[in-house]
């Protein structure tokens, strides 16, 4: 196993957007079918990205583009460290940093829609972070490691020991993947009161960079879900397909929540399903020899 990490990390940098874009494409096809439409071709996200990069760069201020590019670089770094086998608990802080840069890029414009989007994105970050940290500590409890490869090679089926944490993680992934009912800061569709929120003042290549960062992010987020099912390949395939379908189904079947609800629901889920699973699991596993 040793030595493979660096190649996986390099492969992530090169093929990450390809996988992320395909996930996005599948999502759009599946969403269209759920709504009784034919929908766009599978490769539509890539066509969209090419179009975005063909446009003129017109930032609102000189700070905006550097901050957006930093967002992309730190989103990539999160995945690189993740697949390189660094401590996943530390990586969470790089993940947070990446999101902070996007929020700052939106704040810097001063525009009301961007500001509201940035405020809401910050609240979403506050909402999902506890659950993600609890999930990582839970995985550590099962595999006794914060290393991606050591967790993968652990034979303990994490989803059996941590069902609450798994469900809690899927719950907050809806926020991280900008899915309804939690697409309150920005979304792929324009909202009436928000225009595009966080990305309202980003256009052309700037928006392309945000999209690219989102693809990089979705790859390691699904890799995180994979860690719960990594004990067997069959479980992994079923687990990932079910998780993905569940997220798309909920995206299509729910109306947006208010930000107060998003925050208090997510914290309740983290407390009940997350900590409620983590604390007994730790106490039991430590009580046993």
């Amino acid at each position: 196993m040793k030595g493979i990490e660096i190649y996986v990390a390099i492969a992530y940098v090169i093929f990450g957007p390809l996988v992320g874009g395909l996930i996005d494409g599948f999502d759009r096809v599946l969403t269209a079918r759920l709504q009784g439409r034919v929908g766009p071709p599978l490769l539509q996200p890539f066509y969209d990205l090419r179009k975005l990069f063909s446009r003129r760069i017109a930032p609102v201020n000189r700070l905006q583009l550097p901050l957006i590019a930093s967002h992309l670089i730190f989103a990539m770094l999160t995945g690189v460290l993740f697949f390189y086998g660094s401590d996943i608990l530390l990586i969470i802080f790089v993940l947070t940093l990446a999101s902070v840069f996007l929020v700052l890029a939106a704040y810097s414009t001063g525009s009301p829609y961007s500001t509201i989007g940035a405020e809401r994105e910050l609240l979403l970050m506050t909402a999902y972070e506890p659950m993600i940290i609890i999930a990582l500590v839970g995985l550590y409890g099962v595999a006794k490691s914060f290393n991606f490869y050591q967790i993968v090679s652990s034979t303990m089926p994490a989803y059996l020991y941590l069902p609450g944490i798994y469900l809690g993680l899927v719950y907050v992934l809806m926020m991280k993947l900008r899915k309804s009912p939690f697409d309150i800061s920005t979304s792929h569709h324009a909202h009436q009161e928000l225009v595009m929120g966080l990305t309202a003042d980003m256009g052309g290549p700037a928006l392309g960079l945000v999209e690219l960062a989102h693809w990089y992010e979705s790859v390691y987020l699904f890799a995180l879900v994979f860690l719960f099912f990594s004990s067997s390949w069959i479980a992994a395939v079923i687990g990932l397909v079910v998780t993905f379908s569940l997220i798309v189904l909920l995206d299509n079947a729910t109306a947006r929540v208010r930000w107060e609800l998003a925050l208090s629901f997510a914290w309740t889920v983290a407390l009940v399903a997350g900590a409620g699973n983590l604390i007994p699991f730790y106490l039991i596993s430590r009580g046993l020899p």
Partner: protein
Amino acid sequence: MNLNSLVSPFMIAFLSFGSATTVLFWAKWMGLLIRITDPNASRGLLEGKVTRYELASEASLAILAVATCVLYPLVSKYAFEPYLLDTFGVAFGLGRSNMMVTVLMVGMTLAVPGILLFISRRSRNGLSSPYMSGRVTGPGLTFKGSKGAELHVATRSYYLEGIFGEERLLKGGIGLGVLLVLITLGTVLI
């Protein structure tokens, strides 16, 4: 099973929630600081109000804070670990790879936006005006509203009264404070 392993999972739960609120606080503050309502306005208007003494003390505070973050592994190695070893007989060092990642992270946090900002300063791309669902009429977030009236955009902050709320925090805070004082007194008297 000792007390340590009983407490630690609860501690993790506390830490995870604390970390999230810390991010909210600092990121919101920084966001409000870097809001540029008018990119073409002359610099130094706000900074002009700050006295030299205030600037000096705040600058040194900022430099020291950054230095602490960058030199974190050294502080851990030469200050914390000897202390822990001395007091408790055991020391928990930061793993070497974690140390590398921490330094890398802090370094990149400073370098990446800095370098990019330097590059973008030289760019000659025109700036566009922020979107305000109305015709932008000039610098500083003004736009033409209905009937030709010129309107200025103002944003106000919000407070998470229902969730954190001052009143709620005060009630819990007084209780916890009294408890802490009692515990402190108790340990001193015993």
